């Protein structure tokens, strides 16, 4: 309490400076260090022994987290306002990880102590009473937090640690010198102008090399809570905010691939912007000038043609690319989704990496203090009736179709992705509550 030690301006009613240092150790999961074989039975009752392609450690130390935190708390204007700011630096060393190694070594992973990761962050919280009168009171708390993370090193010779692999096409990785949770994927192939290249078949061409397409960790997290009280009625609101980082939505990938997402409506028929065409004898899609046009020989006219925005390559006689022209190849809408959202081959998974920003109304509570006159036959005092709604709605979000909180998990790298089994949105709950004291 530096307010006890120093004489401070009158506006500062209290002040506290805190400094923490901690070293926290943690072991690995149980049986991690066992060097073991599995027994199983092949058809016909023949016993076999097998072993994991992850090699257990020869010797293992607990991992350590060294943390330094400096914080400042102050009460202002006779404790009407409170400010709490802190700065922390964490250094995680000897992390126990199943290190990915080249298969030619004879294993896919080795469990080792490896890697140094640092987290640096700031947190600021301001709370107080903008209005405080006898009948009406408004109290509010605003907090913001920012975390910056860097992988300082991995094990010697290791260039990446793959945290999550989606169908060998999208990877969440930790690479030295980079923040934890970078997302890499095979993106669109692009012309020097940056436009997407469309291949001979009229679909987007896919790059052969991995590129960095995002990071799953947020830049800023924040919250705003406010309570308004007028006599015996009070209203509380709690908003959550997330800014920065990306979300890899495998749910969306398959919703698009199978035509279940509303984005796939475009081009599906004439009413949704589909272009008219017919299929000629050689199997080419030939565009017709209008939806009423008749195809040669009475061939069926289709109305679900689209022309993907992008450029096509122009080749010279020896097959070199000499230029680019706007794409004019018509393809059926369904075939585009079957191709560019395909399982692996031509599917471009980076299409479902979305910016992950949102503001969510986390909680709303409306309470009434029942007048004592109403409850004089009830053997309780201070009766309060509350209506509570949780997870109500997003005021704003950038991830389409799904609830960005329907991630595989809410911890570490998994907060920024979902797979196929874990896409259920968080549930909205509405309830009421009566409280009293005896």
């Amino acid at each position, binding site marked *: 309490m530096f307010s006890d030690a120093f004489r401070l301006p009158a506006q500062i009613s209290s002040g506290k400076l805190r400094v923490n240092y901690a070293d926290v150790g943690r*072991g690995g999961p149980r049986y991690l260090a066992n060097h073991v074989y599995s*027994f199983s039975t092949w*058809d*016909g009752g023949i016993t076999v022994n097998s072993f994991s392609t992850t090699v257990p450690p020869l010797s293992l130390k607990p991992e350590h987290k060294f943390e330094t935190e400096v914080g400042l708390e102050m009460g202002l204007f006779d404790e009407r306002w409170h400010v709490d700011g802190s700065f922390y630096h964490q250094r995680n060393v000897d992390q126990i990880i199943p290190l990915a*190694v*080249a*298969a030619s*070594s*004879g*294993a896919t992973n080795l469990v080792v102590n490896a890697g140094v990761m640092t987290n640096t962050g700031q947190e600021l919280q301001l709370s107080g009473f903008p209005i405080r009168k006898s009948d009406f009171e408004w109290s509010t708390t605003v907090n913001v937090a920012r975390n910056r993370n860097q992988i300082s090193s991995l094990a010697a010779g290791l260039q990446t640690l793959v945290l999550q692999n989606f169908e060998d096409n999208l990877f969440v990785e930790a690479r030295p010198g980079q923040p934890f949770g970078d997302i890499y994927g095979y993106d669109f192939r692009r012309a020097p102008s940056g436009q997407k290249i469309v291949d001979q078949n009229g679909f987007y061409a896919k790059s052969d090399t991995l590129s960095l397409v995002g990071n799953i960790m947020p830049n800023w997290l924040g919250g705003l809570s406010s309570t308004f009280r007028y006599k015996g009625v009070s209203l509380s609101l709690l908003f959550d905010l997330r800014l920065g980082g990306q979300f890899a939505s495998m749910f969306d990938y398959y919703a698009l691939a199978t035509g279940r997402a509303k984005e796939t409506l475009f081009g599906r028929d004439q009413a949704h912007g589909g272009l008219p065409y017919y299929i000629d004898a050689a199997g080419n899609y030939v565009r017709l000038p209008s939806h009423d046009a008749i195809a040669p020989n009475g061939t069926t006219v289709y109305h679900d043609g689209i022309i993907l925005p992008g450029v096509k390559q122009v080749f010279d006689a020896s097959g070199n690319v000499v230029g680019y022209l706007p794409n004019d190849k018509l393809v059926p809408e369904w075939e585009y989704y079957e191709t560019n959202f395909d399982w692996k081959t031509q599917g471009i998974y980076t299409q479902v990496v979305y910016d992950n920003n949102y503001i969510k109304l986390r909680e709303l509570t409306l309470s009434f203090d029942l007048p004592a006159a109403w409850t004089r036959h009830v053997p309780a005092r201070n009766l309060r009736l509350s209506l509570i709604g949780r997870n109500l709605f997003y005021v704003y979000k950038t991830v389409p179709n799904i609830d960005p909180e329907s991630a595989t998990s809410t911890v570490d790298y998994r907060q920024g992705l979902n797979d196929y089994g874990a896409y259920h949105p968080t549930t909205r709950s509405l309830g009421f509550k009566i409280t009293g004291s005896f």
Partner: protein
Amino acid sequence: MTHTIKSAPCLLALLIVAASGVACHDAYDALFLDPDKSTTARIEYLFTQELIDADFPIHYGEWYWQVYNNVAAWAQVSGTVNDVNMMRPVSDQWQNTWTDYYTKTAMDIREIAGIYDTLPQDQKASYEVYLHLGKIVNAFTTARTTDLWGDMPYSEAFTARQTTGRNLFPKFDTQESVYDAILKDLKDASDALRTLTAVHSALATQDLLLKGDLVGWRRFANSLRLRLALRLSEVAPTKAQPIVLEILADPTTYPLVETYTQNIAWYMDRTWTYDHNSLGNRSRATSELPNKVWAPKVMLDMMVATNDPRLPIVFDRAFDSARSYVGLPSSPDAQPATVDSAHFSRLNAAMFRNNDNFPGWVMTAAEVAFLKSEAYMRGWATGNAKAAYDAALRLSIEMYDSTYNRNTRASDVAPPSDSVVNAFINDAAVAYNGTLERIATQKWIHLGIVQPYEAWAELRRTDYPVLPPALIGGRLLERTVRIVYPSTEITNNSQSYEAVRAKDTPTTRVWWDVK
């Protein structure tokens, strides 16, 4: 109640011990072993695992991706509807092939060898047999791997499970040195089996491939060595010829797979789990890929023109009114917009798509006879090339016929009559004519979609038959002749990879592919 209170301190003590266990002190390790697993393995159980990992019948996913989406199209042993991507390896799938080889199949024999070293002296004699059989299987899977990728880590590989001398960044060895190593292993194993005096009692049970038939294993080793030696015919004939001669000049010392009953195959009992039997792998992939299982035009046309007796059991007729045999051309430009069963033939459904009893053919007498014919034709050993070639065709017809009739869901077909078989063998376009083209072409038909990896390797070695180029919009799609290294290897073994980076394209031929 009092009982609970009394035991509480014990419980507490237990919790404390458990909590300190995570410190991984050696003394605690022994106390906290996973109760569902064992710290020791038995050689005979690992040997069976090695046979399973060798994936002789090829599993479902590999049929689906590596074979039908890649190799079948490149070797034109199945007619596939192709597009601009037809020459593109399904890299992430090939990564699985690579990883399974290095971390499972090839590790099993290293694990066996490690355990063997620690056996008491009196047990070593009976267990020795597993070392030799394991080496033969290892040679088979290593050859398959290097034939796909070319240079590969080998001499410094496989150390991750060792407690000392671990090398996580093994160098890439040349394909030549890998071939040297496995050719030597095959000779050593064959020689050792010939003189072995004791055999472990569990072998007959654990040996899912040959039920402990050691002469059969010698035939396998020698036939495989013959196959791999001839693979070097173009690049290193002086290395290959003495091996071929050694084997063919001394059939007593080096017996080969010569008859139908000596064929080496992974016979899957129909009572086995779906995933383990032929319905769950080859048949499943064949039925799930209707656009990858058409009759390849070049092969079909040859078989039609020569009245090949295998034709009706290898391909179905198109459903048009004429019930004709029509093959699908491979080049995208030559393929019509609509490929349907009214107009094109498919792989025979009873043979390949519904066959509940298709064995994983590993080494057939027909292939060995083709190898002998080629060796005699080259003058590398003394023998009748025509007789060997004719025998190869007869053995192939017998093998196809019997494979078809193993199916319990289709009625049997009678074997073709002698006159039909003779007419085929003497057909002007089939009869032995002293050329590699004739031998290689008929061998390609024999291996076909039954042994697609071998068909592709032999096509790359001999360049026969001459297949039409793949064109799209008049533009040539360059042939894929090897698989590119998987991204996990490039990322995690980057320094070693630098030495082979320049060669790592799908169009760079492997060492033995010089023709």
